[in-house]
């Protein structure tokens, strides 16, 4: 510990602290631009100059290590003079036209210039101007405003994992840019907008649509992946204008994924439904809520009366709030209906755990592991900020390995990797298990047969990492959970964890995947396998949210009655009988439980659009209309408290319900499809955010990808069009993915281009 005095205040700080750290710890503000707590030190803006005793000239606080007994003055005459001087230099080339800058009012340069700048400039020469760059559909540029702090550059390299931005040129000629003709394609690229202290990088979708002081700030929780990023939603005139991160060190830190940040566009989309509607004689008619709800109540009652309680299924997505799911289940159960389900993308009906699937630890603890094996996950796209956490941890010694049906670059140094065919993930894991058994000199659990498994070098590599880890973790991603052999994958991964003492976790796919499990919503399994007479669909779109869209659509089309509760128009017009406009997360209070089992409640940030109503209120009214007991809630908090009455922690449990017998299967030798849900098709909101769909990620999702050998065998080249036949057909453009195995074709699932495909049917690909 070192003793230091800042502005006369004595304090002790750990060795290695900088003057900036020390000042921050006592709340002394030192002006700065290039310094950022999550980025490396660049010390290139010089704004943080402070006076240090015995130093002949002012020193940059962000880059000056504290020495014992150091005395620092952050606002002495000499310090302020130095700071004012730096400010004058910074303003030489910076435009002084804040009123027409999108950053005006939230610009660090503007704020500090008010404090340190002169009211007029002494610089009369011509200012330099810099051409703007095209960084893609999310980031807007005004490069003349750049002060070359390089925060954005350091972010892409250090946090996002790949340097997409740089500062070519020297001195006066330096410019921030991406490589010629390239855009910034990171899935967490939007953070550079927050990092840029000036108006050089701003949000393209938000650009010039509001001023910061017109916006009210409301807290919320991201409705996408299982992380549960904390949001500051900025609102004007009852419209969501922008979404920014709310710092939470234990969840999203100060970052957001682009999906979290830009999906709000969907909230204001013209595709919103705002009036209840009933289809009468094949024609859609807007009706009052009371009429629609009467209709639903009577309809459901008569279906139960005519066809029994098993003829109805209530289906929801894991983006529904805890309160919604709880009341929907209560409503269904009140009618005697037990079929409620939210695991719509699960292919393997036999996969079930004894309790709520979860990370097995907190997110922070995961990042503190010394070895992590990721199983079946396109981690950067499924859980962008978990990938980011691991990337930082790797720099501090964590070893990360992957067992995956693809070789996607996680943009971190992988210590080991097993790449399998999509139908051989189990076998990939079995090889790791067998190697681990050998290393540990243990015996393989009886329900797992590794006698036909060969240990490969790569499998041994992963096993070594796992065995050597003192705090190891094995985590299952979306691809594993949605795999046709999920139960086997789970069994082998669990056995691996048991053998090595690793923590076993599941990266829950949706914002409220854990919440749905917690209240026992998932009771029906595949609700579309045997078509029902009636479906109640809460936010669920059978064509995109399900494992088998063809079957799901067929099921809802044949149903006598389909009640759709949704915020958006969709092909529900074709199959539904009633459409009830319900609130997206921004217009209702609710709770999501994230992957670490943490319930996070939020309030509506804007009032419901048009006649939209929060779904929990709709269920409350329906419950009363149906004469069911216990629907007299005053607030959503009452619903939540009832739903969480039994607590969460005790229910978290990743163990299998029963031992699943696992035995290696021989690899098939035909073409096999890697069907994954692309990141901007994951839920109703991201599906409808235009800017996200203009990204490279969204474009890649539209292609059929395979390695060179597979493409050659198919007689096609990148850029060609192919016809895919699998149950139905799809026409896709081909792209190269060199890191797939032979015979693997990667075709998105849950995507408009592939909605006619049945991932279980035989696959054929031919040049179109």
């Amino acid at each position, binding site marked *: 510990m070192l003793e230091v005095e800042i502005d006369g205040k004595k304090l002790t700080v750990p060795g290695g602290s900088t003057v900036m750290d020390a000042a921050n710890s006592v709340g002394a503000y030192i002006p700065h631009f290039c310094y950022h707590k999550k980025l490396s030190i660049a010390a290139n803006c010089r704004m943080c100059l402070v006076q240090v005793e015995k130093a002949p000239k002012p020193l940059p606080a962000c880059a000056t290590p504290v020495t014992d007994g150091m005395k620092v003055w952050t606002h002495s005459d000499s310090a302020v003079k130095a700071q004012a001087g730096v400010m004058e230099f910074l303003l030489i080339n910076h435009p002084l036209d804040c009123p027409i800058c999108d950053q005006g009012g939230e610009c660090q340069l503007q704020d500090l210039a008010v404090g340190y700048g002169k009211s007029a400039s002494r610089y009369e020469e011509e200012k330099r101007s810099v051409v703007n760059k095209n960084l893609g559909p999310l980031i807007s540029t005004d490069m003349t405003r750049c002060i070359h702090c390089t925060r954005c550059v350091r972010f892409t*390299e250090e946090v996002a994992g*790949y*340097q*997409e*931005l*740089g*500062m*070519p*040129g*020297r001195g006066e*000629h330096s410019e921030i*840019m*991406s*490589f*010629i003709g*390239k855009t910034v394609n990171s899935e967490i690229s939007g953070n550079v907008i927050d990092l840029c202290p000036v108006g050089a990088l701003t949000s393209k979708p938000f650009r010039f649509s509001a001023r910061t002081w017109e916006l009210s700030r409301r807290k919320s929780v991201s409705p996408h992946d299982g992380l549960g990023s904390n949001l500051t939603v900025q609102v004007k005139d009852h419209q969501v204008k922008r979404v920014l991160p709310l710092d939470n060190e234990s969840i999203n830190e100060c970052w957001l994924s682009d999906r979290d940040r830009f999906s709000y566009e969907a909230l204001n989309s013209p595709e919103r439904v705002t009036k209840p509607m009933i289809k009468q004689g094949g024609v859609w008619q807007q009706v009052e809520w009371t009429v629609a709800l009467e209709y639903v109540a009577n309809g459901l009652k008569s279906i139960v009366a005519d066809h029994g309680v098993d003829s109805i299924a209530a289906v929801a997505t894991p983006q529904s709030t805890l309160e919604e799911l709880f009341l929907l289940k209560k409503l269904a159960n009140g009618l005697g209906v037990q079929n409620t389900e939210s695991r719509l993308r699960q292919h393997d009906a036999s996969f079930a755990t004894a309790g709520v699937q979860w990370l097995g630890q907190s997110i922070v603890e995961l990042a503190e592991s010394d070895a992590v094996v990721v199983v079946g996950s396109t981690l950067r796209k499924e859980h962008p900020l978990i990938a980011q956490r691991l990337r930082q941890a790797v720099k501090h010694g964590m070893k990360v390995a992957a067992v995956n049906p693809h070789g996607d670059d996680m943009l971190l*140094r992988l210590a080991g990797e097993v790449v399998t065919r999509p139908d051989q993930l189990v076998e990939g894991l079995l090889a790791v298990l067998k190697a681990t058994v050998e290393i540990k000199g243990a015996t393989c659990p009886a329900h797992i047969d590794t006698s036909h498994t060969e240990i490969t070098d790569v499998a041994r590599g992963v096993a070594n990492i796992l065995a050597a880890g003192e705090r190891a973790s094995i985590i299952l991603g979306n691809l594993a959970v949605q795999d046709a052999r999920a139960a086997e994958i789970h069994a082998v991964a669990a056995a691996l964890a048991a053998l090595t003492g690793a923590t076993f976790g599941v990266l829950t796919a949706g914002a409220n995947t854990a919440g749905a499990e917690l209240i026992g919503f998932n009771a029906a399994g595949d609700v579309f396998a045997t078509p029902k007479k009636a479906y109640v669909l809460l936010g669920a779109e059978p064509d995109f949210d399900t494992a088998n869209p063809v079957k799901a659509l067929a099921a809802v089309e044949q149903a006598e009655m389909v009640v759709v509760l949704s915020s958006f128009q969709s092909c529900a017009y074709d199959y539904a009988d009633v459409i009830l406009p319900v609130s997206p997360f921004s217009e209702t209070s609710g709770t999501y439980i994230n992957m670490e089992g943490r319930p996070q409640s939020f309030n509506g940030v804007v009032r419901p659009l048009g006649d939209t109503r929060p779904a929990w209120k709709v269920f409350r009214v329906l419950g009363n209309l149906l004469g069911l007991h216990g629907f007299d809630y005053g607030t959503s908090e009452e619903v939540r408290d009832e739903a969480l009455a039994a607590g969460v922690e005790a229910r978290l449990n990743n163990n299998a319900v029963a031992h699943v017998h696992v035995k290696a299967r021989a690899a098939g030798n035909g073409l096999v499809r890697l069907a994954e849900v692309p990141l901007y098709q994951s839920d109703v909101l991201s599906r409808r955010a235009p800017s996200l769909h203009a990204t490279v990620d969204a474009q890649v999702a539209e292609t059929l990808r395979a390695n060179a050998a597979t493409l050659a065998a198919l007689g096609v080249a990148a850029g060609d069009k192919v016809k895919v036949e699998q149950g139905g057909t799809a026409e896709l453009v081909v792209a190269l993915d060199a890191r797939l195995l032979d015979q693997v074709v990667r075709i998105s699932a849950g995507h408009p281009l592939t909605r006619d495909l049945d991932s279980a049917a035989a696959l054929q690909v031919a040049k179109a």
Partner: protein
Amino acid sequence: MLSKESLAKIDRELTKYPAEQKRSALMSALRIAQLEHGWLSNDVVEAVADYLGLPPIAAMEVATFYGMFNRQPVGKFKLTVCTNLPCALSGGADAGKYLQQKLGIGYGETTADGKFTLQEGECMGACGYAPVMLFNNHTMCNHMTPEAIDKKLAELE
């Protein structure tokens, strides 16, 4: 994009640094690429980056930082006149002017016959011999009086 010989030379440079520090070899690799192509087009810069497994923008930063890397095609003879302060005060600025007038081109330009390119350079650490001029990146010419310049140009013609 890069010849076998160039790649072999780059490989040799790579052995000088730890495997995960390929960035350190960037300057040498770009130098080798420039020797082959005469200048560093965007494509060459990207090819070098690809070969080293680095983001192309990282190579671009280096290629645009150093004056010795040519980002435009240059003439057969590239003359870089030092115009930093010590040289400028000891006749560097005049030497530059003299050259401009002699060759009929400005800084950053190439003569119509493709022979000469004239450039301004930063301090070459040879202020004692001011004014100095660098010839084709490799040869330093000291005390560049008009006579010395005439002599040098005559040699090159």
